């Protein structure tokens, strides 16, 4: 279902029938994609649809198992990021990879600094050229500033300048707006327009449809590693695109079971942490799932970290069962019955070298020990119990969790926290990066837990997940609560408006 682009006969870069697997997971299956000079091509899809794998193949990080990569119509093989760059492909990452100790200009020109006749670096020319480059983009960034301390938006500019300094013909922007404020997004889009005018081919990866339709001339939708459609942006509507992305009706996706909602267990009053979030208040009841929606960087994870005692709030109160409590460490939080399944599974949730059993029992060591010595039999019994209840598959209890799939790893993290027998469960992006089947299972588990009386705070960037799972939806925008909706009220549009901070103003 390809509709030819009008711009040029030969695409600058083209993927033909590309497949890629990691272990048991097929990340990409027979994907075609073409990029023409001077077009902004949007690549959309849910988390885990294969977008980042595709980006990494174009960036020379991964090599496809099957299929061809063509540049200007010729098949090439990119063996390293350096080769991709030499071929004129540049990637702007969500979190730019730069040299924090070096200044802006050095970051732009690292590896290809201008040199004088004697082969010495021509510093004056370097600063001048970077300054001109930035000015030509309409930004005036101090080229002498060390990159350490620059905002994400400014660091992205440095990466863009770096790409331009190497005459990149293909610019891949991987979720570039994820941690930007709306104002910074506007600025970035101004620059993208300019690049388009300079005949750069741009692949814009995003799951924010509003941005996609503002910017892109063509849209490619990925789902479960396969291309669903490529079409000009004019002929697609956001609703259609969502249907292509999701592939099924929302209601059928992951319904939450009805649960008896009880007393307030957790209450947060005017919680504030300077520069991160301000004046956050909400209540959470037994058996309730409170969805916490918002854009990345809205302060949701930061609230969760304070509730779990990782960070401290500067003002405001946390009440458990109506009593004000002080939570100074994760240990305190656990004592109050709080459990936190963190956002970053590999860095925060699991000890990858530990076995399934050891991970599950890590937070309840004193319970499986006698005289401070671990009782292996007890440990395996408890681990087996939770592994079975959560249907962890893919390995014996004694196998390192490293070897498990993302979904099963997430179940192990859940098992670890359920083993602490919590009353309040905070889930931060619990289904990020796991496949569709495992996702449904995780949803079923969450739903069952609520039915058994747990109070659940569900942080998710996937609107369908929030809408289907939550009894109420709390929305945050730039560190503040910007909306609270009941299950009946909440819909995609209302939540999205609140998340982008537009519900209080006139919509544009």
């Amino acid at each position, binding site marked *: 279902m390809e509709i030819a682009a009008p711009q040029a006969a030969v695409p600058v870069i083209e993927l033909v029938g590309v497949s890629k697997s990691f272990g048991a997971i097929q990340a990409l299956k027979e994907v075609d994609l073409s990029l023409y000079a001077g077009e902004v091509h949007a690549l959309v899809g849910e988390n885990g649809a294969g977008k980042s794998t595709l980006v990494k193949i174009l960036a020379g990080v991964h090599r496809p198992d099957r299929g061809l990569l063509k540049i200007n119509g010729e098949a090439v093989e990119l063996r390293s990021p350096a080769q991709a*760059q030499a071929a004129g492909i540049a990637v702007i990452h969500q979190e730019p*990879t730069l*040299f924090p100790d070096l200044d802006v200009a*050095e970051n732009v020109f690292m590896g290809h600094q201008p040199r004088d006749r004697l082969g010495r*670096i021509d510093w004056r020319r370097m600063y001048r050229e970077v300054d001109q480059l930035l000015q030509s983009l309409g930004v005036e960034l*101090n080229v002498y500033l060390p990159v*350490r301390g*620059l905002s994400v938006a400014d660091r992205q500019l440095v990466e863009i300048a770096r790409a331009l300094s190497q005459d990149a013909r293909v610019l891949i922007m991987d979720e570039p707006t994820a941690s930007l404020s709306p104002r910074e997004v506007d600025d970035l889009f101004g620059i993208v327009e300019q690049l388009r005018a300079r005949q750069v081919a741009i692949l814009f990866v995003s799951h924010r449809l509003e941005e996609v339709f503002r910017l892109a001339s063509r849209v490619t939708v990925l789902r479960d590693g396969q291309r669903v459609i490529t079409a000009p942006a004019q002929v697609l509507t956001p609703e259609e695109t969502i249907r292509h992305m999701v592939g099924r009706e929302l209601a059928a996706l992951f319904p939450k079971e009805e649960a008896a909602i009880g007393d307030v267990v957790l209450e947060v009053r005017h919680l504030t942490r300077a520069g991160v979030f301000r004046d956050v208040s909400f209540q959470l009841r037994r058996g309730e799932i409170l969805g916490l929606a918002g854009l990345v960087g809205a302060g949701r994870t930061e609230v969760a970290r304070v509730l779990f005692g990782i960070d401290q709030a500067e003002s405001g109160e946390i009440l458990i069962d109506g009593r004000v409590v002080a939570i100074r460490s994760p240990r305190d939080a656990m004592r109050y019955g709080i459990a936190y399944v963190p956002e970053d599974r590999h860095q925060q949730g699991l000890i990858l070298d530990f076995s399934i059993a050891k991970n599950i029992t890590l937070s309840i060591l004193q319970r499986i020990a006698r005289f401070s010595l671990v009782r292996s039999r007890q440990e395996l019994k408890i681990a087996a119990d939770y592994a079975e209840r959560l249907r962890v598959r893919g390995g014996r209890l004694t196998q390192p969790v490293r070897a498990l799939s993302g979904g099963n790893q997430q179940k192990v993290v859940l098992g670890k926290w359920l083993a602490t027998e919590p009353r309040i469960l905070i889930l931060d992006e619990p289904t990020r990066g796991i496949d569709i089947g495992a996702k449904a299972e995780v949803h079923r588990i969450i739903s069952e837990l609520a039915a058994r009386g747990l109070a659940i705070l569900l942080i998710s960037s996937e609107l369908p997940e929030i809408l289907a799972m939550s009894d109420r939806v709390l929305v945050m925008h730039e560190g503040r609560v910007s909306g609270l909706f009941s299950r009946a009220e909440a819909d995609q549009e209302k939540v999205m408006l609140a998340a982008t901070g537009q519900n209080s103003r006139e919509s544009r």
Partner: protein
Amino acid sequence: MSTTTTRVEETRWRTRLGGKRFVALVSRVRELGLIVVLLLIIALVSLQTPRFLTPGNFEQILLSIAILAIVAVGETMVILTRNVDLSVGSMVGMTAFVCADVLKNHPQTPVMLIIVLGCALGAMLGAVNGLIVALGRVPAIVATLGTLYLYRGLDSYIAGGTQVSAYDVPDSFLALATTHVLGIPALILFAAAIALIFAYLLRTTRAGRELYALGSNPDAARLAGLHRERLILLTFLLSGLLSGFAGVLWGARFATVDSGAATGLELQVVAAVVVGGVNIFGGSGTILGAMLGAIVLGTIDNALTLLKLSQFWLQAIDGAAILAAVTLDALITRWLQRRLVSGRQR
């Protein structure tokens, strides 16, 4: 388009807030701080003894650190890439003995050839370090801890319990350390020239900047297409080469050399580099800073002697200086981060 102009205005305002001068200033904080410390020491000690603030004593201080400074130049480059070379003391010791021993057996050997021999031997030892770290992927601290042993052991094996004394070597060799050029001891000139040359190269060559990049963020360095292996090999090779040259000078200066020469030098070298503001985790620091670090430690050493304080305090002060330097670094970095971030908030 209106958003873009707002942005320009806004950044212009920000540019004024954190201009080039501010940045240049903070990046020099460590060097300035060391100069202040140095002046304080000089002032305090001068009040106690008139023998401190004399040209002769100043020369004495520089002489005492000249060889260490040459080694510190190489160490600085290694540390910039987020590695460390603990084998420098052994490399200096081995080249010192081998060179002196060659001269003992073949007194006719031209001094120039001995210098080349020392540098080549050092470079070879350094290259072995580099290969183990770069290609073998052995952490630098483990690899060079191993070669610290290994090279010292080989040195003992070669020496076999013998020593070379001043009578065994020709005067032309000893002259390396005693000659004065324009009234300045050659040893000091060697150190100054090497420091200046490498400071210049670090500033003006791509490879020099790439050392900083590699230490600052290895992942970004890979994405930028820098050759990690080549750069690491290069720095260890240079560290070895400079240690080799320092070994030749060591032989000339101390005249009496056995297999224990320069034992423990690595600690003093690392102390000088770290006190000089080179970040032990790579990415920032200058050769000038490392030289200042060596001068500060050398001056403290000298002052202790003049004030007839126990020499036994020396090592404790070296240790305390390392601790103070890294604590200060951590605090400055934290402050700088806050300053830069808050300077950019709207």
